[in-house]
């Protein structure tokens, strides 16, 4: 392939990616606009709060627990190189609350929820259930997408907050049991070091990541192709898309919150 051909291929890929981002953004706008248009399907919203929020709690909690513990070990080992082992409680706290809690929580929810939403809505499309909604005077975006997007946007920050606490607890357990920290002293340093802005930035990230997960899942589901293969591809596209968008959004939000 010539240099010109390679550049053209790169350009086509970039334009394709931008088009996809534009389509998802338009879809997200159409869903969000329905927030101000009645009717609001409250029972479907309540069902999604349970499915997205409550049922994601175990996986987010376990991820946070092990991540907090591993982080304590890593910081202790790294800090020992310049006699700074005492920073473990503060770095575990700030690392969990600002970064690892929201990002890992968001990625775990992406894996669990975006895939499930895309598969459910994709199957509904393949079996004409979405057409049936239209014939029953129900707007699929309002009935299927809005409750999921709203539920994910509201519940993922709560999951992040719970994950932050459990992650810090994981660090505390390892710090006290394995690294010889004083139990009360570890917690005192953690609470003294953390600022409200650290916690708020993590929760805002959680809300944005929840929005991304649900939008990616519903968008992929509604564009699902025919048959099992189409639903499978939609599911894969939802998880990959949500994960990449979460990591990109995390960088943008981190710049916005913490750049000097």
């Amino acid at each position: 392939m010539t240099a010109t051909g390679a550049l053209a291929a790169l350009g086509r890929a970039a334009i394709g990616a931008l088009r996809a981002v534009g389509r998802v953004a338009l879809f997200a706008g159409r869903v969000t606009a329905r927030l101000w248009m009645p009717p609001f399907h409250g029972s479907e919203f309540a069902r999604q709060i349970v499915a997205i929020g409550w049922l994601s709690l175990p996986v987010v909690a376990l991820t946070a627990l092990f991540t907090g513990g591993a982080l304590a070990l890593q910081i202790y080992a790294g800090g020992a190189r310049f006699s700074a082992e005492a920073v473990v409680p503060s770095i575990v706290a700030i690392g969990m609350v600002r970064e690892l809690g929201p990002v890992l929580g968001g990625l775990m929810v992406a894996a669990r929820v975006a895939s499930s939403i895309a598969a459910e809505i994709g199957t509904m499309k393949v079996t004409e259930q979405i057409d049936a909604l239209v014939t029953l005077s129900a707007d699929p975006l309002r009935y299927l997408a809005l409750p999921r997007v709203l539920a994910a946007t509201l519940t993922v920050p709560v999951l992040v907050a719970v994950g932050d606490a459990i992650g810090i607890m994981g660090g505390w357990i390892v710090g006290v049991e394995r690294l010889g920290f004083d139990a009360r002293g570890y917690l005192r340093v953690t609470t003294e070091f953390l600022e409200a802005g650290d916690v708020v930035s993590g929760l805002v990230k959680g809300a944005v990541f929840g929005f991304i997960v649900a939008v990616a899942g519903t968008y992929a589901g509604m564009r699902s192709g025919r048959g099992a293969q189409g639903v499978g591809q939609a599911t894969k596209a939802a998880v990959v898309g949500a994960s990449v968008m979460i990591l990109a959004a995390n960088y943008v939000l981190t710049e916005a919150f913490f750049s000097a």
Partner: protein
Amino acid sequence: MIALEGLCKSFGGAPVLRGVDLVAERGENLVVIGASGSGKSVLLKCILGLITPDAGMVRWKGAALGPDNRADFLARFGMLFQGAALFDSMPVWRNVAFRLLNARPALPVTEARARALDCLARVGLSERVADLYPAELSGGMQKRVGLARAIAAGPEVLFFDEPTTGLDPVMAGVIDRLIADIVRDLGVCAITITHDMASVRRIADRVALLHEGRIRWRGDVAALGSDPDPVLRQFVAGSPEGPIAPTG
């Protein structure tokens, strides 16, 4: 009541509908027949607004059907889908009462459930079925629940998409009898698409044959067997020899 005027639709440059003109009146079941891939489903989806036609229009009660009056049309509309298309996340009675529970204003739950039970009884299903989920039902029962859902809100227009596909002959006969009774009793304007000729003879008042994107033949069901049109004769006889070429 519903009139199609010069309806055209192509996909990727391949024409599927090439100017379809058709009228369906109140109190009759117009059955559209045609080979697989002849555009029957596209025709229904164009009427519903699920697919936008490239040219032509759909009239309902004399007015062009569009964004201004489609919600009004759909509020008076019911449809039985080929695979029933029941919502598998909710029990049978909520499927049947879906429109009533989501209308503005919505019917109270107890009233909606009572109406759903009436509709289920109308299609021969007992109260025991009401609290089951669609996955727990046989194909024939799912079709009957779909029929109950279609009539729950007292429609003026009913569409039946391949109502007997996938059913055994006895259950197909049961569904056909229910369709014929419902169309007659409710006095609705019904359009059915099918290629099941036994079903056509049981439920049709008038028949239209869709071939190569146009209405090739139309007439009363009684004339189906006697018309000399070679396409119609081949289709009715189910013969592999003739002007209808298998798709693919």
